[in-house]
């Protein structure tokens, strides 16, 4: 920064001023005159709109603040700029740990489950889970999109979110399981079984990608999901545990879990459904009885959260399956009212690559599927979002299936199960939901 008053110095100062002003005024023109974006696909929300003036909105600052937010939020080419940041700027911050292409990146406040102190399992893990749990910000909710192409964000459920600590390694996002209330889950299922008497009660706790794919040298970053699944199985009384872990682990080399999303893929759900129907002694059809559907360039929630260049550069193929048999599907609200006739799988037209998972439907509706199986078996599923992908693969096994999300259920679960004359109840969710904050919803559903 020369402040030389000699002539060449002055000339350079003029050049400098012109350059910076060119950027400033060029940027102003870009911001003002180029078309504003309206939707952020990767964040699943509608961008800020120009605020409406009212005396109230002026006084509370939301008018002026809204104008600034509008300009900041709707920059032309926002999506491309963001991808440019992820692909070309973020990698400049450092290197991947322990490898070039397949090395590790860490996002969030990872809690480390120290190998050197194996004695403190549940107690320490529970504290970690609790301290990391927060209710989602209302700001995100209010900007949620409600129009067709992008599904509305799910309404907040009490204690429904888990802080996402994500390890990206081998081009795959892995959620780091913090452990949780294993006994609490088993107690809850046992209580359900007691209240339900003769109804078959099944519990299928499934691992997340972290539980299956975490390389051994990173194991200390998370609690062992398999150990908690086994501990739950051992603590169940009357309710029957279904071992999905072993089936899934056997097919680890296939694409059974999303690499850019925290869910499993339909194929994973297929193997889990197979394990369940085998345990229940029910008919089950192989994939040949399904139509295979493909969506390309899927970039799921892990990318949205981490903006990891590795995930961005490695989008995946989203594969799902439609049963060839005929089914009728009715969707209800969380109090089992207002039925809507819908398709089993939501049409994927107009869906953006980040929204593909919504082909399995939303969590905040109760679905009733009636099939032509005619075997008189009626199943009620209490599930988290993993459960949605199970549904198509059970349509050859049950005559009626009621799919209920434990977080969005406003009736008494026990009365509901009895009311629909269920023969079977399946509690199916991932480890985070079973032992984490979602467990409170499952408990509360008994007493509504």
């Amino acid at each position, binding site marked *: *920064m*020369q402040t030389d008053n000699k002539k060449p110095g002055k000339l350079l100062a003029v050049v400098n001023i012109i350059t910076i002003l060119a950027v400033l005024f060029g*940027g102003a023109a870009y911001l003002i005159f180029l078309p504003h974006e309206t939707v952020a696909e990767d964040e699943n929300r509608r961008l800020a709109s120009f605020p409406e003036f009212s005396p109230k909105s002026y006084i509370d600052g939301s008018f002026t603040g809204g104008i*600034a937010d509008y300009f900041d939020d709707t920059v032309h080419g926002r999506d491309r700029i*963001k991808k440019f940041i992820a692909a070309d700027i973020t990698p400049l911050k450092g290197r991947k740990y322990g490898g070039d292409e397949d090395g590790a990146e*860490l996002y969030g406040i*990872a809690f480390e489950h120290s190998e050197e102190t194996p004695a403190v399992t549940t107690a320490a893990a529970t504290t970690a889970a609790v301290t990391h749990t927060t209710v989602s910000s209302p700001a995100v909710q209010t900007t949620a999109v409600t129009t067709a192409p992008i599904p509305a964000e799910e309404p907040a459920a009490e204690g429904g979110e888990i802080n996402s600590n994500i390890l990206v390694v081998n081009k795959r996002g892995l959620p780091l399981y913090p452990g949780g209330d294993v006994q609490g889950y088993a107690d809850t299922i046992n209580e359900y079984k007691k209240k339900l008497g003769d109804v078959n009660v099944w519990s299928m706790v499934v691992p997340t990608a972290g539980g299956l794919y975490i390389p051994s040298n*990173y194991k200390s970053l998370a609690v062992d999901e398999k150990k908690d699944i086994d501990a739950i199985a051992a603590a169940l009384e009357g309710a029957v545990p279904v071992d999905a872990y072993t089936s899934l682990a056997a097919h680890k080399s296939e694409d059974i879990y999303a690499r850019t999303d925290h869910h499993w893929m339909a194929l994973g759900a297929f193997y889990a459904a197979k394990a369940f129907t085998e345990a229940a002694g029910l008919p089950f059809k192989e994939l040949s009885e399904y139509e295979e559907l493909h969506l390309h360039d899927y970039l799921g929630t892990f990318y949205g959260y981490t903006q990891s260049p590795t995930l961005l550069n490695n989008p995946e193929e989203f594969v799902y399956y439609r049963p060839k048999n005929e089914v009728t599907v009715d969707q209800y609200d969380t109090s089992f009212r207002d039925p809507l006739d819908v398709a089993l799988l939501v049409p994927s037209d107009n869906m953006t690559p980040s929204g593909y998972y919504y082909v399995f439907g939303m969590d905040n509706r109760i679905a009733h599927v009636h099939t032509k199986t005619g075997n008189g078996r009626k199943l009620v599923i209490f599930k988290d979002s993993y459960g949605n992908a199970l549904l198509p693969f059970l349509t050859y096994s049950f005559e009626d299936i009621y799919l209920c999300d434990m977080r969005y259920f406003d009736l008494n679960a026990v009365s509901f199960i009895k009311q629909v004359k269920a023969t079977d109840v399946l509690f199916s969710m991932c480890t985070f939901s079973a032992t984490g904050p979602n467990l409170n919803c499952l408990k509360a559903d008994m007493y509504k």
Partner: protein
Amino acid sequence: MVFSRLFFIYIFLPVCLGAYFLARGTKMKNNVLLLFSLAFYAWGEPVYVLLMLLSAVINYTAGRLIGRYGDSRKSRITAGLAVFTDIALLGVFKYSGFIVENINHIPSVELPVPDIRLPIGISFYTFQTISYVIDCLWETVTPQKSFRKFLLYVSLFPQLVAGPIVRYSTIEKEIDERTSSITDISYGLNRVVLGLAKKVIIADQLGIVADSLLGGIENATAAAAWTGAAVYAMQIYFDFSGYSDIAIGLGRVFGFHFDENFRHPFMCRDITEFWQRWHISLGTFFRDYLLYVPIFGKRRKYGGLFLVWLCTGIWHGASWNFVIWGLYYGLFIFIETLIGKKRMKKIPLVIRHIYSKAVIIAGFGIFYFEDLDKLGTFFTKLFSTGRLIGLQDRILLVNNVYLLILAVILTFPIIDGIRRISQRSAPVRTAAAVSLPAVSAALLLLTSILLVDQTSHPFLYFRF
């Protein structure tokens, strides 16, 4: 409004610069600046702008009265009342919640906790008005006759929301008569870009690392606690000094010469020196107006010292951790005073550097943890034994290694160094001068690109 957002850089600033340089004469330029300053403040505080106006009216009137009464008892009473009102306003709008919460700790006291939102910048402009009134009383400045000019001093948007605390004497002459030379404008714009880049490219990115390291303090190792606090210290430095750069730069563009607020604080050799290099305008404020208040009798040296550090702490925020933070620094400065400058100098330089950096880093831990339980955990972790560094910390540090190295390098006076070298070597001088516009433009563009991402609402929490 804050500086580090696209709306400010690309809408507010170009419009303001355009209007300012189209206006002819200092009077018109002052009007333009005043208008934009009030708009700037009202943009974020459509109601509290009235509070700032009220404060300006009170202190302006006090200044006029003091000017009329001269060196008399009436003047001292007027100044006393004005300063009392300033502190009372600050007390009500910044500290009432904190005060009432603490009073409620007394058994059987149940006062309703007032829910008052902190007006942006009140800590800064209140200190400016206090310094003005006292300077009027001490006759170091002539009371401003024009309310418009006084209001401009109080509300001048470059330094309004995040300092530095500009003394009236600094701008007394320039508010009446000033010019922006070509080199002033060039220097000022570069300084603004530098400040924005420090804030957005360095500080905000460091923030992510610091939060990752300190967020799970319960499970942290000693290395994570130390590194986390060190990264946080650098984050605050680049953030705060970046804001000061923007303020000083904008001031220069408009023809004002503000004093420097930071002088590479991490280069210090002891804690006393740290505070001569960190947030200088606050330190000199307390030195000039508080340190010599004769309320401690014979022992006022140390009384004054701890009073200053108590106030420094409280000034930073209405929370106990800030009180502790202030007194913590006071304690180390007290110890250094006991040792004495001459004996301090005899300690090897390396040791002084290690000591001062350790104290500063741990100090920023106090600044970070408002929750006192977590603060306690932090300190036990600092001195915990066992595993030196966890796997997660190793991954995080490797993932951010270039950012961290860059940040550490930039805490040194790099630009001064380049300037020194270029004074000796003509080719370097030419190279630096010629590349400067390109470097500035590139930094501004990079900053802007990163700001596009700032409104992102990532899936902070995933749902199963």
